[in-house]
C-alpha cells in the first residue's frame, strides 16, 4: 500500500433525500476516516447523473418526503439502476436509510396508488397500510450481535424480509414492521435500516464496520486504529437508559 488510503463514497440525492438529517452519517464516516489518515472523497450524485458505481467503495442513500422519494425512485431505476445493482451484487458497501432502504428493496406499495417497483437488491418488500394507519415514530434500540444500535424511526411503510437477513433485532420501537421484531436488512455488503438519529455517530462500531468492509474490498486488510469513543458511547448509553434498556 502506497501512501494513505483513499475511499470514494457516492452520496445519492443529497438534497432530495435528506429529510431526517441523514447527512450526519456522511459527516461521521468522513471524520472517522480522517482521524485515521484515510481520505474519504464524497461525490454528490444527483438526478440524471449516471456514474459507474464500480468506481465507488461506498454508497449512501437517505430518506425523503413521499413526493421527493417518487422523483428519486423514477430517476434511480432510469439512470442508475443497472450500474448500481451490478456493483451492489459485487460487494459495494452501502448504507440505505428509510426511504433509501425502501427504494433498494423489491417493491413499495404507497398509502394510495399503485405498487412501485424498487431496485430489488434487498430481498424485502414494503407496504404502506393506508393513509389512516399510524406511522412508526419514536426512538429505537435494537440488538445487533453483542451490541446495540440506537436511533429514531419515522416511517409509514411496513417492510417484510423475503430473503435478506435482518440487520438487528428490535428491543424498543417498531423496526421493519412492528410485528416480527426485525430491523433493517443485510444483503452482501449493503445495509438497509429505518434508523435516523443520525445513525452512525451514536453507533461508532457500525460506522467502523462500514469503513473496514470498504477497505477490505480494496484488498486493504488492516485493523482500524482505535478512536476514543467516550462521547459516542455516552450518548448511546444515555438513550438506552432513557429507553429502559441496560447497556
Amino acid at each position: 500500500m502506497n501512501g494513505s488510503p483513499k475511499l470514494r463514497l457516492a452520496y445519492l440525492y443529497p438534497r432530495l433525500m435528506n429529510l431526517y438529517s441523514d447527512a450526519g452519517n456522511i459527516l461521521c464516516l468522513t471524520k472517522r476516516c480522517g482521524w485515521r489518515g484515510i481520505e474519504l472523497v464524497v461525490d454528490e450524485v444527483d438526478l440524471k447523473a449516471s456514474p459507474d458505481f464500480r468506481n465507488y467503495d461506498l454508497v449512501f442513500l437517505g430518506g425523503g418526503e413521499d413526493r421527493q422519494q417518487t422523483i428519486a425512485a423514477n430517476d434511480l431505476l432510469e439512470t442508475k439502476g443497472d450500474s448500481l445493482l451490478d456493483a451492489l451484487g459485487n460487494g459495494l458497501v452501502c448504507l440505505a436509510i428509510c426511504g433509501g432502504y425502501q427504494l433498494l428493496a423489491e417493491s413499495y406499495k404507497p398509502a394510495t396508488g399503485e405498487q412501485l417497483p424498487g431496485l430489488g437488491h434487498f430481498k424485502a418488500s414494503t407496504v404502506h397500510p393506508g393513509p389512516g394507519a399510524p406511522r412508526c415514530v419514536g426512538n429505537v434500540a435494537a440488538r445487533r450481535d453483542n451490541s446495540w444500535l440506537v436511533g429514531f424511526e419515522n416511517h409509514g411503510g411496513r417492510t417484510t424480509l423475503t430473503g435478506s437477513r435482518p440487520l438487528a433485532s428490535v428491543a424498543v420501537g417498531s423496526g421493519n414492521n412492528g410485528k416480527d421484531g426485525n430491523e433493517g436488512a443485510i444483503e452482501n455488503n449493503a445495509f438497509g435500516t429505518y434508523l435516523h438519529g443520525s445513525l452512525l455517530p451514536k453507533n461508532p462500531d457500525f460506522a467502523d464496520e462500514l469503513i473496514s468492509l470498504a477497505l477490505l474490498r480494496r484488498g486493504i486488510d488492516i485493523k482500524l486504529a482505535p478512536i476514543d469513543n467516550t462521547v459516542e458511547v455516552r450518548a448511546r448509553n444515555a438513550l438506552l437508559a432513557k429507553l429502559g434498556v441496560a447497556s
Partner: protein
Amino acid sequence: MLEPVIPRLRRLAASRINPRLSLAIVAAHAASAASAILRRGGTSLPGLVSLRIEPDCVRLLAGQLGDGSIVVAGTNGKTTTSALIADALRAGGKRVLHNRAGSNMARGIATTLTRESGIAGNVKAASRLTGLFEVDEAALPGVLAQVTPQVLVLTNLFRDQLDRYGELATTAERWGEAIRRLPSNTTLVLNADDPLVASLADSAPGAVYHYGISSWIGAQAGSSLLKPALSADSLYCPRCATGLDFSAIAYAHLGQYACPSCGFSRPVTQLDVVVRECDVESSVLTYSSGGVTSQCELHLPGRYNAYNAAAAVAAAIVAGVPLPLATKAISGSRGAFGRAERANVDGHDVRLFLIKNPTGADEVFRVVGAGDRDATLVLLLSDNAADGEDISWIWDAQLELLVPWTGPVLCGGTRAEDMALRLKYAGDERTSTVVPGDVGLAVRRAVESAGSGKPVTILATYTAMLAARAVLARGGHVEQYWRTRK
C-alpha cells in the same frame, strides 16, 4: 364559585344569549382563577375547558371583534412577528387582543378570547378590538375554520419536528385547502422569498400582498449565499417539481428564484425591504411600498429578524397602519420572550435564544458567532413533547459555525449527551461540560462558573428555554412569561 352564577345563567337562557357559550366563559374564568392560585402559567387550560363546553366558542367570540382578526403562521418567527405586528397596530391607534406566546393552538386562542369576555357571551369593548393570533402550523386549518381573518400572514415553511408535523408538502397542502375556503375579503400576506409560501397565492380567493427582501447591502449584512444548505427544503418548484434556479439566497431556501420549466418565479412584491446593515445587535432596513419609503433601525439581531420585521410591516399596512408609523413602532420593539432576550445576572450579560430547527438554529449560530466568543456558551437540547422527540435535526444544523468559539461550552437538557456528540463531529476538539437532565442546574452552573463579568449565551430548545427562563425569572432578571403580554 358556580353557585351564584346559576340564576344568572337561567336568566341568560331565557334571553337570546347562547347559554353554552356563557357557561364556557364562566368555566374558563374559573380554570384561570385556579391556575393563578396554583401559580401556573395557565395559558391553555381555560381555553381547553371552554372548548369542551362550547366547541364553537372561538368562532362565536372572534366574530365579535369589530376590527377583525389577523392570523400569523409559519415555522420560524411567528412569535416575534406577532409581537412586532402588535406594536405597529398600537402605534396605528388600534387596540389589540393578542394570544400569549406558547399558546398557539385553538385552545390558546380560546383562553385569550374568554379572558376578555363577559358572562353574557360578549367580548368586552369588542367593537374597537383587533384580534391578533399566532397559530401553530398544524393547528392552522382548524383555527381558520373558526376564525375568519381580515389578514392571514404566512411567513415561511421549514422542516421542523417531523415526528409531529409530518412532511412540509403535506403542511402546505393542508394550508392550501384551508385558504381556498376563506372568503374573498381575507387578504393573504405572503413571503415572496419562500417558494412554497409564495405559491399559496394560487389558492387565495381574495387579494394577495407579497413582501420580500430584494437585497442585502454592505459587508455586515452578510453576502447572500449562492448554494443552498443541505437542510434547505423548498428547492423544487411547488408547481411542477423541477429544481428551482436561485440567483440569490438570504438563508436556507429564502431568496430570488425561478423555475426553468414552468415559469413559476418569485412574485412581484407590494412591500420591498432592503437590508443595509445586519449584525448581532440590530439591522438597518429600508421599506418601500406604494411609492412611500422609510428607513429604520431594527433592534433585533440577524437576517431572520429582518424577515420578521418585513412580515410585520406588511401585515400592519394591510390592516390600515401607514408605513412610516409601522416602521417607527417596530424600530422601538424589543421582540418576544425567549427570542434574543437579555438579562443581567450578577454582573453577567446573559442572552437567551430559542433554537428548534436547523434553519432557525443556523441563523442564531451566525448571530451569536458574530458576537463575543469569549462568552460561556450553553447549548440546551431537550426532547420533551413540545421540543419534538426527534433530535436528529442537530445533525442538519451547522454547529460548525460555533467551532471558532473560544469561551467554555456547556451542554444541558434531556439530550445533553447528543449535543456534546454533535460538537465533537463539528470539529470541537475541546471536551464540553455535560450537565444532563435538570436545565436549571445547567444554567446556574454556567453562570456561576463564568469568569467575573463574562457574558453567558444560552441557546435552548423550547422546554429548555422555558426552564432556563424560569431560573432567570426566579432571580427577578426577566419577567415571568405569562405576565409579559397584556
